[in-house]
């Protein structure tokens, strides 16, 4: 057994397991040790499931010996604490669900289990996935492995930090307005938000149901393809799950990019974009030209309306979804309620943090009598225009590229008192959720020693094309192989 297992990709680990170079038990133990050794510095996990992980690893080893391996059999994976895990605390980063032991598994968790993957634990996240810095978590902020005074991004900040520090070879995330892509960019890893409906939302605690989508986060596009293969598919228990067949995501990874047409939206390179970030993105685009792609300028004229649209639609849906947290059936309940209304109000007032309350209140207001047309309906109309922009663009190009975020990772505390400044961290990612398209972030370089992400946006259900473009880029560059010094 070698002690450099953590520097291997999932695909390399899968080969090692099959060849008997090491067992899943050895591999899982080594990752659990790395998690426990880094917890104080990174705070990437809310719950580490040591015992359960070792049992799953033993079972995986038996499957491997019996020649009954799936794609990820024996591979340790960390799950965002938004996915319900039977018998394990599922907090969603909130005091409200701190006492919540999920009574069933999310479909995504079930899929990983059936494939034989090992669950390392539940990763830290912004409370109910509402945040872009992981600072709204009840369990404290996650630190960016590249700079411990910087945020890892959010809301899947724990998952991103875990993969970046190689304390997990892969992790699940969810993305409502950028929550996979933005932390992937800020932590220097690869993350993909699939097309809306591609991965089941069953058992994934809902934030904004028409936008929420789960996806993989890992070091490379190749690893994301393997994970997405396990995650994707129709589920009758999710009413918006797609019935389309799932393609083999690894089949087209090395397809030649000659003739691929890439669109650069001029709105993604204008005011607000950090100059040094722009240079990194331009260099990455040049790499694609070398790979044979043709690059053209396009326009997505309603881009500036994405953030305002999102901050009506998402809070409206969240105020409805989070009404189930009422202190009656599960989760936090206040002490000595004097009547039912007091029970509701104080349980919710104590259980939710400031940002979650803010969004619930905005949503309740936007949906209230007399304001519904002015806010919610208006936002849904603008959403249609944003979606139309993409439709027209994809008549001309195969892929859209630009920066994932306007700046590198900001410092802890820098934006936590200014919600609007925080919201702008997702300026390039939000429109993708509003349209329901697949998007991806690839590590593309550094500014001031902090990672920068290149965003790729594809047409509906074209995850294979994104993964192909990601893989080819990673064959030509080594940004995805960089590991922060302290965790190397």
């Amino acid at each position, binding site marked *: 057994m070698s002690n450099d297992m953590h520097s291997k990709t999932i695909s390399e680990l899968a080969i090692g397991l099959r060849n008997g170079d090491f067992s899943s038990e050895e591999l899982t133990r080594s990752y659990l040790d790395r998690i426990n050794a880094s917890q104080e510095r990174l705070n990437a996990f809310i719950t580490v499931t040591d015992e359960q992980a070792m049992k799953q690893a033993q079972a995986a080893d038996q499957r491997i010996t019996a020649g009954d391996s799936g794609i990820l059999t024996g591979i340790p994976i960390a799950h965002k604490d938004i996915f319900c895990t039977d018998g394990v605390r599922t907090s969603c980063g909130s005091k409200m669900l701190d*006492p*919540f*032991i999920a*009574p069933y598994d999310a479909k995504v968790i079930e899929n990983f289990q059936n494939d034989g993957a090992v669950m390392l634990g539940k990763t830290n996240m912004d409370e109910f996935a509402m945040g872009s810095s992981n600072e709204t978590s009840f369990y404290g902020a996650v630190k960016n492995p590249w700079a411990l005074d910087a945020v890892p991004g959010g809301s899947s900040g724990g998952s991103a930090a875990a993969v970046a520090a190689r304390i997990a070879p892969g992790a699940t995330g969810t993305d409502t307005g950028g929550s996979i892509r933005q932390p992937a960019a800020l932590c220097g890893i690869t993350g993909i938000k699939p*097309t809306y*409906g591609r991965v089941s939302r069953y058992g994934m605690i809902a934030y904004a149901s*028409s936008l929420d989508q789960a996806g993989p986060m890992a070091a490379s596009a190749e690893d994301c393809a393997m994970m997405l293969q396990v995650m994707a598919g129709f589920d*009758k228990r999710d009413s*918006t799950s*797609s019935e389309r067949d799932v393609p083999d995501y690894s089949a087209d990874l090395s397809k030649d990019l000659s003739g691929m047409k890439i669109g650069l939206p001029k709105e993604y390179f204008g005011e607000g974009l950090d100059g040094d970030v722009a240079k990194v993105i331009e260099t990455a685009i040049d790499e694609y030209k070398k790979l044979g792609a043709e690059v053209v300028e396009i326009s997505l004229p*309603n881009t*500036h*309306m994405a*953030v*305002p*649209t999102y901050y*009506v639609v998402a*809070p409206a849906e969240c*105020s409805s979804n989070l009404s189930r947290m*009422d*202190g*009656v*059936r599960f*989760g936090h*309940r206040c002490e000595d*309620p*004097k*009547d*039912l*209304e*007091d*029970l509701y109000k*104080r349980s*919710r*007032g104590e259980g939710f943090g400031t940002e979650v*309350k*803010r969004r*619930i*209140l*905005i*949503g*309740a*207001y*936007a949906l*209230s009598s007399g304001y519904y047309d002015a*806010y919610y*309906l*208006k*936002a849904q*109309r*603008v*959403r*249609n*225009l944003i*979606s139309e922009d993409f439709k027209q663009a994809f008549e001309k190009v195969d892929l859209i590229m630009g920066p994932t975020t306007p700046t590198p990772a900001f410092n802890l505390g820098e934006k936590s008192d200014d919600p*609007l400044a925080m*919201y702008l961290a997702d300026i390039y990612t939000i429109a993708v959720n509003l349209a*329901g*398209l697949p998007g991806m972030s690839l590590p593309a370089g550094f500014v001031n020693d902090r990672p920068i992400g290149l965003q790729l946006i594809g047409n*509906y259900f074209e995850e294979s094309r994104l993964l192909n473009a990601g893989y080819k880029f990673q064959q030509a560059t080594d940004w995805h192989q960089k590991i922060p010094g302290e965790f190397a």
Partner: protein
Amino acid sequence: MALEKKDVEAIAHLARVAIDEADVEDYAESLSNILGLADQLNSVDTDGVTPMAHPMHMVQRLRADEVSETNQREHLQEHAPAVERGLFLVPQVID
């Protein structure tokens, strides 16, 4: 749209969320700022544009009205805040 303290209190009541008296002012300010952001939507002409509820304009999938779930009452109530004889307990509602 600027919200005043009494507006915040009214919305908090609608949403059944207790807000500390000392924080109401802060909420009034941050919520007003967010609504200011939302007001930018008014600069867009949306006459004749259909509201978009689903990215693929999918309609609700229906299923046959058949029992598909088993009764797991005890399992589901294991971690409830207060339960008695299979019922969730809340403060008395009717005198």
